[in-house]
């Protein structure tokens, strides 16, 4: 086993996390042995389809899993050296907003409709930074200007803003206390492409300015290529492949990652027919035996339905959880690794 070294450059570490939601009828296994590291100053893209457990992961980091149905069965989350699950609710309130904050998916419903946007940002500053009312209002205007909204609009209400502007307000809200980690849960899904482009540029700039780390939750590999440094691909509550951008985009190893890419229409080659992944996500209350992806996997072997595959490490950064690599490091997928074409100048 590899020694888990809590080196200085990991800001967030999730180790072997298991979360179940228990009801009278069934137990939904939302997170099943999740391991994840976000490095300081880096952006990690957490990619997966609906129901993969992306948002549950984010809520776990904030220690906001709904109890009593939600149960953290096993695992540890270390954020900036602190063990999240050992904190009391009072202590957590100090951590949320200050060390970590989150931007939600839907800008239309995440803001308070009867409070001006300036007041909403100022409230955060008053509580977390203990600023006076006047100082907080001033700071709130400054925050709005950072995200490209004229400070004078701080007296307006959310309904007076467009979708893109509301998302900017949410970003301002999330960044108000300069957190070390920003969790962005599908921050641009509700926006139009040209507005999405503006918001992504803004987030990239601010991340660099404030030297934060970011956990970008998305289903869009285009956005990942745009803003992330590292990628973790999630399926049925666990990471199936993780690595740097180049590892995942150019040297993918897991059949599910390959399937995700093959499902995307290629703008440069429209005659090529799409190769979707067959079937659907498994029911998290009734996960298949062995590898949870095996019923949909075209490379599945007898072993896959019996035993869960271990994480195979290809390099310091790149690993994948698949039996195909039991005895080899060679790519076993139909899709080829990216080879730079001739004539590319060095």
């Amino acid at each position: 086993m590899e020694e888990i070294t809590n080196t200085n450059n990991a800001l967030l570490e999730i180790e072997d996390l298991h979360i179940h939601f228990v009801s009278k009828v069934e137990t939904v296994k939302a997170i099943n042995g999740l391991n994840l590291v976000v490095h300081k100053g880096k952006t990690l893209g957490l990619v997966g389809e609906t129901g993969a457990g992306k948002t549950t992961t984010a809520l776990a980091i904030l220690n906001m899993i709904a109890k009593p149905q939600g149960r953290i069965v096993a695992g540890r989350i270390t954020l900036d050296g602190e063990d999240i699950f050992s904190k009391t609710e009072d202590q957590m309130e100090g951590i949320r907003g200050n060390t970590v904050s989150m931007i939600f998916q839907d800008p239309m419903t995440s803001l308070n409709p009867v409070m001006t946007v300036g007041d909403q940002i100022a409230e955060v500053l008053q509580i977390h930074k203990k600023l006076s009312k006047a100082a907080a209002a001033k700071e709130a205007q400054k925050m709005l200007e950072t995200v490209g909204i004229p400070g004078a609009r701080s007296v307006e209400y959310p309904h007076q803003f467009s979708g893109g502007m509301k998302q900017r307000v949410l970003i301002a809200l999330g960044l108000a206390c300069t957190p070390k980690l920003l969790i962005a849960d599908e921050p641009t899904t509700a926006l139009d492409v040209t507005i999405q482009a503006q918001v992504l540029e803004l987030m990239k700039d601010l991340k660099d300015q404030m030297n934060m780390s970011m956990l970008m939750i998305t289903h869009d590999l285009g956005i990942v290529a745009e803003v992330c440094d590292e990628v973790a691909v999630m399926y049925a509550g666990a990471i199936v492949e993780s690595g740097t951008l180049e590892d995942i985009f150019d040297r993918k190893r897991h059949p599910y990652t390959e399937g995700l890419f093959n499902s995307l229409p290629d703008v440069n080659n429209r005659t090529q027919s799409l190769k979707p992944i067959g079937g659907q996500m498994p029911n998290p209350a009734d996960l298949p035996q062995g590898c949870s992806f095996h019923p949909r996997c075209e490379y599945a072997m007898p072993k896959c339905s019996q035993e869960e595959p271990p994480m195979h490490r290809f390099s310091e950064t790149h690993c994948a959880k698949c039996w195909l690599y039991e005895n080899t490091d060679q790519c076993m997928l139909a899709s080829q690794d990216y080879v730079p074409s001739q004539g590319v100048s060095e």
Partner: protein
Amino acid sequence: MSDNVILEVNNLKKYFKTRSGMLHAVDDVSFTIERGKTLGIVGESGCGKTTTGRSILRLVEPTSGTVIFDGTDITKLSKRELRKKRQEMQLIFQDPFSSLNPKRTVCQTIEEVLKLTGEYKNSDERFHRVLEIMEMVGLDERLINAYPHEMDGGRRQRLGIGRALAMKPKFIVCDEPVSALDVSIQAQILNMLRSLQNELGLTYIFITHDLSVVNYISDDIAVMYLGRLIEKASTEELFRNPLHPYTKALLSALPVPSLHNRQKRILIKGEISSPIDPKPVCRFAARCDHCTEACLKGEPPLVEVSPNHFVSCFMVQPEQG
């Protein structure tokens, strides 16, 4: 008008009266679609793409303009005639969660439509046809008595498509049919729509905001901005040689899932302006980097700059000879 054209839309307008003025949702849009082809309509929220689709089916009454479908002007038909004609024109909705009746099973949903056609004499014949349709859209026979809430988004959308096909239409308006679905399911539905088109000779209008989807499915693409059609060309031409500044920005804003051959982004400033009582100037002028005096004096007409490539911009000149 050649025989091959199934739909011709001329100067279609749809205005909505609002308290603050007249909202120009669709403003003077004209285009044609050939039989068996797909026209993609792209644009951002509020550009009028959905209203265009609905006006063509007369689900909203157009303010003015004509829609000639298969030789008949839809806008002139009486309610009864329209009802009959609509059998040939169907709609697939964006949201497979709210567009199905939650109290009807798969079988009942499709059967209801079959009853309306009056083509089937008894329930046996209808039942047989229900199974046929379910197979066509890839729904397992075991789901025949399933209710919508028992199915996931992909299957629900398959049912929505099956319901549209039950009328044996010639023409379907697909309004963002895959936007609510995950990529792997989205790919399944797109492939299915493509193969249904080949088998049944369907003509589609495909409304979407997703450029990579529209690129995959369409033969021609129309780009809309604030109720106006600003550029229309074949898919290859539009992606290779976009001419309108807005189209260029839109194409460059598309996040490409690859690390190579990346292009520099053109960021456009600001946001879409209000569609209420727009001034008679170029509607993109306020956000355009190439805006000149001419753009603020009048609205640019839609001009055919090269064969089958239409652009509405003062800065683009037709090719010579």
